[in-house]
C-alpha cells in the first residue's frame, strides 16, 4: 500500500482494463478490505466504482445478470426477480455501511471463508463474466471456485458480472452466526430443480465452516434424480456433514461444525422444497 503512486477511477470498463494490464495494478471493487491491506507490491489502484456498465442488474425471461459493482444493499433491495437465496445472502452480510460498499465482484474475487454471497451463487449455478484487456470470457462459478479465484483469474482480469438462471431452482439460504453482524459459523444454500415429485438436480453449497465457499457434490448427487422424501433430506445432511473438509475455527469445535452442517443442510433442503422464506440470519 505504501508504494502506491497512482490512483485512477475510470468511467469505462475498457479504460479500467487497460490500466489493470500494467504490472502492480490492483482493482478496487468497493474497498471494504483495501484500507486494511498492506500489500507492498501494489503500485497503482484502479477504482471500479464509477464504471456504470458493471453496476446494473438486468433481467430477461430466463436470466438475471448482476454487475460486479452492484452492492449487497442494491441486491436485496432489487425490486425484480432476485432469487431469494441471493437476496438473503446479500442481506446477511455484515452491517448496513458494509453492505453499502461490498460488491458482488469484490466478494467473489476475495473469497474468504465467511463470504456469504458466493455460497448462494454456487448453489444456484451462476456463471461469471470475466474481462481483461485481451479477452472477455464466461465461466461457470464451479470453475471459478475450483481453487481460490485469485488463481483462476488471469493477470489483469476482473469479474464483470454474475448471471443466474431464473425460476430454475427452489432455493434456500441459511446463515448461522452468533450475532446478526458476524462472520458465519456456517452458511448453507440448497437449490433444487424439481420436476413433479422428482428432484431432477440438487446443488448444495456451504461456507463459513470451510476455507472457501464450496459445493457439496456428494450430497447433491444423493438427491439428484430421486423422488422426494424427507428421509433423503436427512441423509443428504449427514452426507454433507461427512464429506466436507472443515476449517479449524477457534469459536467452535469440529463436532459442532459437523452436527450443525448435517442439521442445517437438511433444514435448508426442507425449506427449499417447501418454498419457505430464506432465513436472513439464523442465530443470535
Amino acid at each position: 500500500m505504501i508504494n502506491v503512486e497512482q490512483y485512477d477511477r475510470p468511467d469505462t470498463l475498457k479504460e479500467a482494463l487497460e490500466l489493470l494490464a500494467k504490472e502492480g495494478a490492483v482493482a478496487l471493487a468497493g474497498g471494504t478490505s483495501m484500507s486494511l491491506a498492506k500489500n507492498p507490491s501494489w503500485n497503482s489502484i484502479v477504482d471500479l466504482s464509477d464504471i456504470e456498465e458493471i453496476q446494473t442488474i438486468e433481467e430477461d425471461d430466463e436470466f438475471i445478470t448482476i454487475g460486479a459493482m452492484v452492492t449487497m444493499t442494491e441486491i436485496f433491495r432489487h425490486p425484480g426477480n432476485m432469487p431469494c437465496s441471493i437476496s438473503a445472502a446479500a442481506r446477511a452480510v455484515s452491517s448496513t455501511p458494509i453492505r453499502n460498499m461490498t460488491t458482488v465482484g469484490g466478494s467473489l474475487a476475495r473469497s474468504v471463508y465467511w463470504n456469504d454471497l458466493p455460497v448462494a451463487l454456487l448453489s444456484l449455478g451462476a456463471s461469471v463474466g470475466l474481462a481483461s484487456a485481451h479477452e472477455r470470457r464466461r465461466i461457470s462459478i464451479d470453475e471459478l471456485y475450483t481453487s481460490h479465484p485469485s488463481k483462476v483469474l488471469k493477470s489483469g482480469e476482473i469479474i464483470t458480472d454474475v448471471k443466474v438462471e431464473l425460476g430454475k431452482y427452489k432455493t434456500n439460504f441459511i446463515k448461522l452466526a452468533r450475532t446478526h453482524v458476524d462472520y458465519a459459523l456456517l452458511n448453507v444454500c440448497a437449490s433444487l430443480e424439481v420436476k413433479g415429485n422428482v428432484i431432477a438436480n440438487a446443488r448444495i453449497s456451504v461456507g463459513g465452516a470451510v476455507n472457501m465457499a464450496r459445493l457439496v457434490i456428494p450430497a447433491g448427487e444423493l438427491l439428484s434424480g430421486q423422488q422426494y422424501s424427507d428421509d433423503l433430506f436427512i441423509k443428504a445432511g449427514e452426507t454433507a456433514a461427512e464429506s466436507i473438509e472443515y476449517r479449524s475455527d477457534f469459536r467452535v469445535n469440529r463436532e459442532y461444525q459437523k452436527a450443525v452442517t448435517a442439521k442445517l443442510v437438511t433444514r435448508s433442503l426442507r425449506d427449499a422444497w417447501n418454498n419457505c422464506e430464506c432465513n436472513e440470519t439464523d442465530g443470535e
Partner: protein
Amino acid sequence: MIQISLNINGEDFDVDVSPDLTLLDLLRELGFHSVKKGCGEGDCGACGVIMDGIYCKSCLVLAMQANGRDVFTVESMGDVNDPHPLQQAFVDEGAVQCGYCIPSMLLAADVLLSENEDPTDDEIKEALDGNLCRCTGYVKQIAAVKKAAKMMREEENDAE
C-alpha cells in the same frame, strides 16, 4: 503523495494524501472531530460518514477514494442553536449517553429517513446495525428516529 479534491459539508478541499491515509484520518486532520475512531477496523462504526449519498465507514475508505466525492459529517446537519430534528429527537429521547457513537448513528438515521419517511422498528434496527453503542440498549435511538421521522413528516405537511 496523491493530490485529491473533495467536498466536505459543502466546502471544497484540495489536499495531498498518502496512499495509506484513510478518509477517517483525513477528516479528523481537517478538524471534523465528529468522526470518531473506535477501532479503525471497520467494526464499530463510530467513523461513519455519508459519501455521495451512501452511508459508509470512513476507516475503510482510503482518502484518495474520496477524490471528487461529496462527504457529509454530522457537522453538516445542525448546530446547538439550530439542531436537525434527528439531533433534537436523539437528545430529547435520551438516546445520547456518552455520545461517542452518536454523530455517525445520526448520519445512518439521516440516510434511512431520506429513503423511508416512516420506518418500522425493524427497519431502524437494520439501518443502525453498523453503529455499535455500549451505553444504551438502542431502545432510545429507535424511539428517537421514529420521533424525528414524525417531526419531519409534519414539517413537510406544514410546508405544503
